């Protein structure tokens, strides 16, 4: 029975090992082929419609600043995950910047800008994305 066990295990290794090795190599090649922004954003590429928003937010909001996410109706160019998970991703991506309801910075996803009277548009992109800054 031990010989039979060893035979089954060796056959399984012969079948599986090349696939596992190839998978790891293909994964390494695919990772190397990504540009530096795709690599930095990672899972956010399937959540945030435009990477430029992320880097603009990092450039605009100081490290000790706060932000809030204002979500409007879904627009063309958004993914199925944008409405549900954009805030979760931004909380991760923009740390140490924190979220706060009365934050000075508003990451606007097709939001109603009239809800933020006096807020200036700091950055504006496609797909209804913009960064607003409340004037103190």
């Amino acid at each position, binding site marked *: 029975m031990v010989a039979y066990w060893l035979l089954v295990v060796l056959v399984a290794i012969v079948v599986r090992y090349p696939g596992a090795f190839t998978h790891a190599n293909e994964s390494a090649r695919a990772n190397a082929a990504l540009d530096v922004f795709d690599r930095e954003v990672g899972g956010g590429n399937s959540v945030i419609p435009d990477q430029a928003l992320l880097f603009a937010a990092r450039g605009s909001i100081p490290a000790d600043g706060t932000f809030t996410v204002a979500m409007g109706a879904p627009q063309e160019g958004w993914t199925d995950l944008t409405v549900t998970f954009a805030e979760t991703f931004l*909380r991760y991506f923009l740390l140490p910047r924190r979220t706060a309801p009365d934050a000075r910075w508003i990451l606007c996803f097709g939001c109603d800008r009239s809800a933020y009277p006096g807020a200036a548009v700091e950055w504006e992109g496609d797909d209804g994305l913009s960064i607003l800054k409340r004037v103190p």
Partner: protein
Amino acid sequence: MTVRAIAGLAALNLGLAVVGTSFLWAARGLPRWTDVLRLSGLGYLLGVAVFGVIWTQLLVVGVPFGGWAVLATLVAATGVCGAVGVRRGRSVPRGLVGPPTGSSLSLFVTASGIALVGLLLEALFRSARLQSLQAFDAWAFWVPKAKAIYFFGGLDEQIFTTSAGPTYPPIVPILDAAAFHAMGSVDVVTFHLQFWFLLAGGVAAIAGCLYRHVPPWALWSSLLLVLVVPRFGEGLLTPQADVLVDLLFVVGALQLTLWLRDGQGWRLACIAALFAGAALTKREGLLYSALALGVTFGASWPRRRSAWPRLALVAGIVVAAAIPWRLWYRAHDITGEAPPSLGASASLHRALDSLRLSLDVLFDVSLWSVVPFVLLLALAAAFVWGDRRLAGFITALLVLLFLGGAWVTYSYPGLPITANEALNPIVRYTGALVLLAGVSMPLLVGSAWEDGPEAPP
């Protein structure tokens, strides 16, 4: 990704290995440098566990986390272990070569096994080096918690109480935060290598622990098989807590198995550290540890007078390590770690569905290849020709683990009966069972091959 970041990570993990190896030296003694080399993987995992357990307690009481604090912890832990070793009269390792332990064929099998495992790990290293952060759980809460520890120096209330999984223990975020300090920045690409180090250390730990107890063909064939099963291939480097909790638990369970055979007390010190680490890595870690210790209490019944007080001490250390984190989140009005009413209100119908789901997942060849099937063969061989006591212990542990997985599905009414990982954790849970199967098989077939059970110590 920079060479400086990789060098920093390597230095951090070397530091963890030094802490754990000095722990081993104090507990066991390491007479030769070959012992140091052979047990360096176990030493590394011990270092990870000790470091994580210490920092969990420090963060709970509000000690600020920083690069210098990490370094000071590593130095202090090594110093304490060294002082204990000196006090216990441990000698400095001497000599590189021990007595010859095998034939040329054994050496060839060992060299081939190391080469094949090494080749796979090298490919995984290249994959991890430039990997982007994709897994939802990783960016939804594991890495935000790590960033919070890195940026704010502690268990930041906003991040730790409002992120998903607020009851999940903090060892992985602590390790990630230490990795950020070691790399010099929050490099969420290169930090995947931290998980490669955990994997490589875990593989080395399993191989080093089993090396003297099983034939090389049994060791390396089992290890290779487990490494190449489809599910592990996809998830080994995902920056979450599943792989680490599985490794800490399985290596601890392996030490328990060996302790039942040889009764060496140093193993219990390792088990306490590894299980405490598992309990603070993921919630399942506490369940796994309780099941393993429970089975060991039963298995050591014939020598209960000497064994039970020592096992009770191990259980006490694990519980004592796990409590402060639980107190912290309860103090912040977070609940939900245990299922409501421990599942007592669910129906028999749901219990049967949960059992069926666990069975389907365990014997799914698209996840675990043939591991569960060859495990059954190994158990049968051990029961018929090998060490029946060993086979009985491993069977009891595996059955309880299996039932534990079914209980998780059964007791949380909100979990749908599905193998979809986004909805039910049963696939991740079963990973520990399959890894334990892979680690147990060499012992089982080895005992059958040697034609009879070993004499009890």
